[in-house]
């Protein structure tokens, strides 16, 4: 009897803790919104963070986008060639990148490259009591540390995803047209005939904004909530990657089922 009660109690306490963390995360988000004014008034704080989250992620984004585009071009060509429609390779590469791979792969890389950095930085600031020192000086850490990073992530992520899609398409172009020798005119014209701006490109951009929000707020919250020890910070960093990746993939499924019916 006691065992059953303990089991049920275990479920209850796990659920309560998860809910409490979700609530704390939501509370952090609203605090960020309240203090956002400061991060725009002192715009150099946000610009500095855009440099660290966006500009420094550019290389990994561009390189992986080019390779993803090349692989798509190569694999797509082998299959499409069997049906004698290798000119449709442009459509395949463009739609796959603009709708799905662009936002999703960018978000996964973003979580790994920028999200972990944010978590580790904020976690260490907390562990070394820099955040407490700010509070003592009557400087709100949310306004000075969290809000600029939040807006930097929200701004960087859609830009990175757009660059990813464009570079990936260039990678597909490189393989399909320059290496394999698909006709260049039909490559672009079929793409233009089948990729719709308001349906495909704008929906992809909306996805990237949602993913940017999810990755950034998860990274910020994990850092802000990390136990102020070396182990706590390392665990929080791991959790950032795991939760961000799962959130991105889950949100992608939900958004896709709403957008592309």
């Amino acid at each position, binding site marked *: 009897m006691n065992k059953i009660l303990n089991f049920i109690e275990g479920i209850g306490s796990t659920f309560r803790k998860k809910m409490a963390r979700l609530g704390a995360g939501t509370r952090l988000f609203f605090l960020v919104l309240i203090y956002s004014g400061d991060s725009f008034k002192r715009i*150099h704080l946000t*610009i*500095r963070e*855009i*440099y660290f989250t*966006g*500009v420094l992620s*550019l290389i990994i984004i561009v390189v992986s986008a080019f390779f993803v585009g090349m692989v798509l071009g190569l694999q797509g060509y082998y299959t499409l060639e069997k049906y004698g429609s290798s000119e449709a390779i442009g459509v395949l590469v*463009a739609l796959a990148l*603009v709708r799905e791979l662009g936002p999703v792969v960018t978000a996964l890389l973003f979580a790994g490259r920028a999200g972990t950095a944010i978590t580790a930085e904020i976690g260490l600031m907390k562990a070394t009591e820099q955040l407490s020192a700010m509070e003592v000086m009557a400087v709100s850490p949310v306004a000075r540390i969290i809000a600029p990073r939040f807006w930097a992530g929200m701004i*960087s992520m*859609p*830009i*990175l995803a*757009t*660059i990813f*899609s*464009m*570079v990936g*398409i260039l990678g597909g172009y490189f393989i399909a047209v320059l290496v394999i020798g698909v006709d260049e005119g039909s490559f*672009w014209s079929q*793409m*233009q*005939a089948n*990729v*719709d*701006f308001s349906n*495909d*490109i704008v929906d992809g*951009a909306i996805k990237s904004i949602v993913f940017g929000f999810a990755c950034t707020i998860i990274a910020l919250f994990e850092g802000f909530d990390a136990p102020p020890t070396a182990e706590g910070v390392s665990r929080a960093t791991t959790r950032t990657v795991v939760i961000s990746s799962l959130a991105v993939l889950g949100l992608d499924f939900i958004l896709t089922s709403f957008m592309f019916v």
Partner: protein
Amino acid sequence: MERAKLDIWVGIFVILGIAAMFGLATKVGNLTSNSIKETYQVFANFENIGGLKPRAAVKAAGVVVGRVDSIVFDTEAYHAVVKIKVDTRYIFPKDTFANIYTAGLLGEQYIGLEAGGDLENLEDGDLITQTQDAVVLEKLISQFLYNKAAEED
């Protein structure tokens, strides 16, 4: 790092993003080729629209002159009413034919307009009276089999 240098890098980053968006919109998407702005509406009734969808192309001699705006089913006459938006640059005579064609063997369906010889032109809200339905493959096959069977008798 000093602030001016940071600003330059972030500026380059934002410009790259805008350039990529511009490239996606013009080179990959159909924002430029889809520059139909001012349109007039005409209606066409079809017994069967096959796989025609809203936003499908309306072509005349292969040139895109408009788009399908909406398709509704008329419960009184039991046919499909297709609302077409045609670019105001293109004018068509009143006895224009509207046919549903298929692009390629298995491609998307579109409406092809073939101009007639009437002196008056189609105006906003007019109805195209002469239409030809989409080809339904099953009907075609059954017709073929029927003819074959008739020949053998």
